[in-house]
């Protein structure tokens, strides 16, 4: 069973109700897109936060990533809105 650390920032943290969680997704999940679909099933808040992926950016191990990119056990995966610093 794989283990991943998921981080949520800004309004995604608000909607999911958590800033960080350790999860154990099924072993067959191998892409970011697959992981996101699985995360949606964790709670109604997760489903709402991830309903429109055009509003969500991703990072795997602190590098920007796309839904087709691979994920594996031990990864740190962050989900956040488009950035607004500066």
């Amino acid at each position, binding site marked *: 069973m794989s283990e991943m650390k998921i981080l949520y920032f*800004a309004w995604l943290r608000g909607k999911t109700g958590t800033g960080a969680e350790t999860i154990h997704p099924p072993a067959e999940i191998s892409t970011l897109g697959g992981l996101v679909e699985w995360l949606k099933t964790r709670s109604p808040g997760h489903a709402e936060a991830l309903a429109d992926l055009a509003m969500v950016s991703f*990072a795997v191990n*602190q590098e920007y990533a796309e839904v087709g990119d691979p994920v594996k056990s031990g990864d740190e995966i962050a989900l956040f809105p488009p*950035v*607004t*610093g*500066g």
Partner: protein
Amino acid sequence: MIRVQREDFDPAEETNALVADDHGIGGVVTFTGLVREIADLGDGRDEPISAMALEHYPGMTEKMLARIEAEALERWPLSASLIIHRYGDLEPGDRIVFVLTASAHRQAAYEANMFLVDWLKTKAPFWKREDAETGAHWVKARGSDEAAAARWSASPPKAAE
């Protein structure tokens, strides 16, 4: 150099500290970003804000800022550079970000400075939350920021030597 910090900074002190001992520097460009008192809600409405909270992704923030700075140092002949970005609770008028670029000649300093600000706005993982009378809201990313950053990808400018 990059710094991500909660504390305020003094633009004059930062500038003097970086350029005082390097007399090869012919020009210094500094950009200081401030918290505006008026929020642009993105739908044509404006609203005064009472406070701003700036959240970031510790670790990735430093990584991205360092990479952006390295890119600028590769593209332009800079003698010194500095990015300071604050996080935490801020109020209208507070300084948020400071970008310094110094070079023998002004063109490199100007261009590199704009490049750094444009890129950090679209790549550094910071998020602004504004508190207004109608409640708190997360600031939406602006298409104009994306466009400003994209022009540096299209054709890397040549700096004057």
